Structures are given as structure tokens and as C-alpha cells.
């Protein structure tokens, strides 16, 4: 195994609210290896975004607080870095693609200016001409037609898909070594999603950046990710490479997620959701956080009482946090049709 570019250990992030302390991220640990795409899946509120935002120092503090943990990046702990040092890394070695291209671009600034924001901030001496040339090149790379004209336009003159392309161009402007894509296709319609996928792949190839892909779209994961982390209630419940996870999931939550997807191949009248609600992050159930909704637990005392640790299956790199994972032997995940299938 090569050295990980980013190594997160036991990260705990909480938010103080009027109702109590919300444990948004509860002790997650994972590594990101050079050049790979790591998918993080989970429901809304499972801590996917918060876990990565806290790396960049982008969660508001207060009410947010990083309780403990470390995030080693280029030999330094991102969580203990001074604001100034962190700023030097943001947009330079560690870049982010935001979820909603409609609100993530400043409406009064030209696209070209915003794309080169990161270049200008990190290279104060850069000439306007050179920056603009770079913006044109980046727009061309992400497939915006007529880039020479487009750099001088404003966000309202861009369609949603074009804006997301611009956001990607913005993120890769400084050739980051880690790229975080926070639900990059959620705000787009399906046909555009497929195009953006291609752009993302291309951007990744071009910069050779290790990518963290945060999404709740399993199709996107199947299409793009090399390894998958499944999160539930602020915890990592399953880790494995993408084929293993889809072929033989070993956590009931992962299986539930896959089952809940409608399939185009089978005539079905009803969706099969996971019963119940994600637990309140203020008062977690004791034991396994998933046990009230789990088809395996069925009143087993161990699930209620003992929190399952993340443990390897068959001594492989496939990890699961379920006491009874062995009982899932032979279960296959339903075939998921990738979003970009056929393109």
C-alpha cells in the first residue's frame, strides 16, 4: 500500500444547538490514497459533508467544535494548523467542488475572475493576462464551449451544467493533490449529471488528484469511486472497494440503501425504503446506532447493548461495523445502474 495523502483518525465533530449537543461526526477514521477516488455515501445528516468541511476549517465555530481527532496531510495535522497555514492549503493542495452551482458563484463577478480566484490568492504576483489565459484553458478543459467569450461572462449567463463545469475548473485551477467533491451532481438534472461525471473524470485524470466524492447517489459511486465508505449517524459502518461493496455488502444498512433504489430492470410497484428514521444525533440509541431499523438485529440483546467496532471481514481490506456480518454471507447488493451508463 502506498502512503496515504490524507489520513483521518478518530475525528469527532459536534454542534451545540438549543436542544443539546449534536454529534455530527462520531469518531471516523479513514485514509485517502494518491490518485484514488473515495466515495462517501450516507443519508442526509450522516456526517458526510461535515467530516470533510471540518478538514478545511469551513464549519462555523461556534456552534461547531472539533472535539478530537487528527487529519494528517503532507505531514501536518490540518485540524491543529493555524488559520493562516490552513488558508495556504485551501484551494491550493486541497480544493473543493461545491454542491449547488447556482449559489456557489458570486453573481457580480465574472466567471473568469472567479475561476482564477485560487490562482490569484496563492500566487500574488500573477499577471491578469496570464490568469485569464489559464481561465480560458481551464474552461476548455471542462468542456465549456467558446471559452474565450465565456470567461468574461457573469454567472447568470451560464446554465446550471455550465456553472458546475466552471466550479470544477475553479477547484482544479491550482492542480490540487486532494479534491473534495461535495455532492457535485445533486443540483443538476439527470442528463447533465452524466456530462458532469465525464468532466469530473477528466479533471481528475488531468490533475491526478485523489478525490473524495461525497454523495447519496449510489449510481454515482458505482460509476466513479474506487473505494467506498458508508456512513450512518456520524459513524463509518462499512468500508471496502467498490466492487466488493456492491457485490457483497456486509452491513445491513448498506444492503438497505441498495434495496431502496428503484430498479429499471424489474417491474416493481413499491419502493423498499429502510423502515424508521435515522436516529437523533442528540440522543443516540445505545449499542449499534442502526439496530432500531435493522432486519438482522430483531431484538438481539448484543445489538442493543454493545457498539460494534469497525472490523475486517475475512482479514481483507473490507471493513464492517456489524456484530452479525457473517450472517450476510452470500447476500449480494442489487445491481445498480450507473447514472452515466451508456455514455
Amino acid at each position, binding site marked *: 500500500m502506498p502512503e496515504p495523502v490524507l489520513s483521518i483518525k478518530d475525528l469527532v465533530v459536534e454542534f451545540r444547538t438549543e436542544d443539546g449537543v449534536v454529534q455530527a461526526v462520531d469518531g471516523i477514521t479513514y485514509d485517502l490514497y494518491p490518485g484514488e477516488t473515495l466515495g462517501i455515501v450516507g443519508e442526509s445528516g450522516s456526517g458526510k459533508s461535515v467530516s470533510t468541511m471540518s478538514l478545511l476549517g469551513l464549519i462555523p465555530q461556534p456552534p461547531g467544535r472539533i472535539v478530537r481527532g487528527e487529519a494528517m496531510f503532507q505531514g501536518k495535522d490540518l485540524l491543529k494548523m493555524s488559520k493562516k497555514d490552513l488558508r495556504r492549503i*485551501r484551494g491550493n493542495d486541497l480544493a473543493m467542488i461545491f454542491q449547488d452551482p447556482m449559489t456557489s458563484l458570486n453573481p457580480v463577478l465574472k466567471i473568469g475572475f472567479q475561476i482564477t480566484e485560487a490562482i490569484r490568492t496563492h500566487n500574488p504576483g500573477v499577471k491578469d493576462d496570464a490568469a485569464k489565459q489559464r481561465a480560458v484553458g481551464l474552461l476548455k478543459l471542462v468542456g465549456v464551449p467558446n471559452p474565450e467569450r465565456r470567461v468574461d461572462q457573469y454567472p447568470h449567463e451560464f446554465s446550471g451544467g455550465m456553472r458546475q463545469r466552471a466550479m470544477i475548473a475553479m477547484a482544479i485551477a491550482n492542480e490540487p493533490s486532494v479534491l473534495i467533491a461535495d455532492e457535485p451532481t445533486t443540483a443538476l438534472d439527470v442528463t447533465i449529471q452524466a456530462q458532469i461525471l465525464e468532466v469530473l473524470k477528466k479533471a481528475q485524470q488531468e490533475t491526478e488528484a485523489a478525490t473524495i466524492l461525497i454523495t447519496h447517489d449510489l449510481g454515482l459511486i458505482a460509476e466513479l469511486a474506487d473505494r467506498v465508505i458508508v456512513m450512518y449517524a456520524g459513524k463509518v459502518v462499512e468500508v471496502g472497494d467498490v466492487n466488493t461493496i456492491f457485490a457483497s455488502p456486509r452491513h445491513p444498512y448498506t444492503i438497505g440503501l441498495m434495496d431502496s433504489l428503484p430498479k429499471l430492470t424489474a417491474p416493481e410497484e413499491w419502493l423498499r425504503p429502510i423502515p424508521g428514521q435515522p436516529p437523533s444525533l442528540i440522543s443516540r440509541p445505545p449499542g449499534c446506532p442502526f439496530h432500531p431499523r435493522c432486519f438482522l438485529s430483531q431484538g438481539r440483546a448484543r445489538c442493543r447493548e454493545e457498539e460494534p467496532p469497525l472490523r475486517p471481514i475475512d482479514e481483507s481490506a473490507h471493513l464492517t461495523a456489524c456484530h452479525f456480518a457473517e450472517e450476510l454471507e452470500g447476500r449480494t447488493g442489487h445491481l445498480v445502474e450507473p447514472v452515466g451508463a451508456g455514455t
Partner: protein
Amino acid sequence: MSSESGVRDELTIGPPGSQYSMSPAEGPSDPSAELTYQYGLEVEARSQWAYARRRFFRHRLALGSLIVLLLIFGAGVFANFLAPYSYTQINLDALSAKPSAHHLFGTDSAGRDSLSRVLYGIRTSARVGILVGVLSTVIGTIIGGLAGYYGGWADNLLMRVTDLFLTLPLLAVLLVAAKYLGHSTPTKLALLLAFLIWTQIARIVRGSFLSLREKEFVEAAKAAGAGDVRIMLRHMIPNTIGPIVVSATLTIGTAILLEAVLSFLGFGIEPPTPALGALLNEGQDQGIDKWWLVTFPGIVIVVIVLCINFVGDGLRDALDPTQRRVRT
């Protein structure tokens, strides 16, 4: 039958052979984009400024006011070329003379030409007004910006200071200050006024920064590595420029009015430098029958302040981003 079974190699939307048919072979990779450029379907792009300018120029009252204002201020700026006499030149043949061909606005009791004094007075008043507009905008933007961007205790502290300034009885403070500072030069007076009336701009900028702070593009800029100062200057101020410009404009009007009030009460700009308020003051000392000494400077003040307010209104409408509609 054979004619119907012939391979259709054209995708026909309209009648066969019509202009709507398109051969699939020539379909470009991104048909919509290609068509757009090929047939010039794209609407000519306009920047926010272009929209604003267009809306402003369609606002007749505001445009008219702007022209009148430019003429009046221009007359003040070029007073040394336009004025028929120096503002201190005494004509002993025409003491307290009525308006005539020689002295269009008449003369005062010392035989000085009223028109010339009004022109120079405009120059003084405009200078005070614009200086106050700029200074108070800068002070207000800095204070409001810091308060809105950082929030928390910084916001609390700065806004309580702002409240303190807002509660001061303006006129009383100005009179006391003027009394201590003695008769003042236009610059000194402008500094004093700017120091007292930046509060409104501070509140506007704070409110706007508070909401901008939560926008995703600010977060995106942070993620790109932009620092606080850069975010405030490059991302937030351009988004607030509309309200700032409007209120700066209105501040100029307020400042000119305040300067007139102070000078009228005898605490303003030191004679013999003519200022519009000082001219009013001199005029009223010389009796009701010398109507021309009060009327002309008075009209000029009213017209200036009215025009500034109309221009401000026009700018407010023009710079409101929710108004895409252009007045017809």
C-alpha cells in the same frame, strides 16, 4: 409501398424537405450550443452595470435631475470662469442693487455681486457635500463591514458605538463643536459632518454583510483560500455596491443641507468664503426688502438637494438587482 419503405435517412420534424429537417449525420456533439452560435440565437449578454445604466437612463426624473445637478455643480467648479465678478469685488455704484443686466442676482449692501457669490457658494457647498459623502461612506463601510463580517462581540461593540452616534442630537452637537472649533474651513466642516453622519451607511453595510456572510459563494471563496480582507473587498462589497452608492448620494444632499443650516446659524464656513447657507444668513440680516439676497441662494439649495434625492431614487431603482424589468 416501396416508396414508404425507403430508408428514412432524415430526421423530419416538419413536412419532408422543409427547413426543419436535419440530417442526423451533421448533428454536432452539442447541438444546442452549435445552433446557438450558428444562428445567433443567443441574446447579447449584458453585465449588471449595463442593466443598471439602462434602467437609470430610462428613469426620466432621475436623468433630468442628474443633468441639472451636473450643470449646477459644473457652474460651481468653473466659477472663476463663469462668475462676472470676484466674490469680494465691491461695486460702490450699486450697493444693495436690485437684479439688473449688470448684476443678474443683484448686489448686497457692500456692493458685491450676488450671482458671483452664489456661484462660488455652490463650489464651497459642493465640495463639503462630496467630501462628506465620500468620507462618511468610507467610515460607514469599514465599521459596518467589520461588524457584519465578524459578527459576535465585534458586531456588538461596533453597533453600540453606532447607536451612540445615532442618539446624538445632531444639531446640538454640531453647534457645540462649531463653537469650539470656531469658524471653519470647508474641509474642517466636512470632517466634522462626516464624523457624525456615517451611521446610516454602517447599518446598511452591516445588514448586507450579515446576509452575504452566509452565502455559499463566500464559503466557496474561503475554500479557494481567499482571506478575510479579500473576501470582504472582492466578494462582499461588490454585492453591496448598490445600497452603498444610493446612500452615499443621499448623504451628499444631507451634508449640503446641514452645511447650509450651520452657516445660516452663523457657525459654518468662515466669511468671506461664500457658502450657500452663509449667503442666506447675510441676506436675512439685510432686511425683507432685499429679497434677491435670500431667494437665489435658497432656490439653488432647494434645487440641489431635490435633484440629489431624485438621483438617489433613480439609482436605488436602477441598482436593485431584483428589478430586471427596464422602464419603458
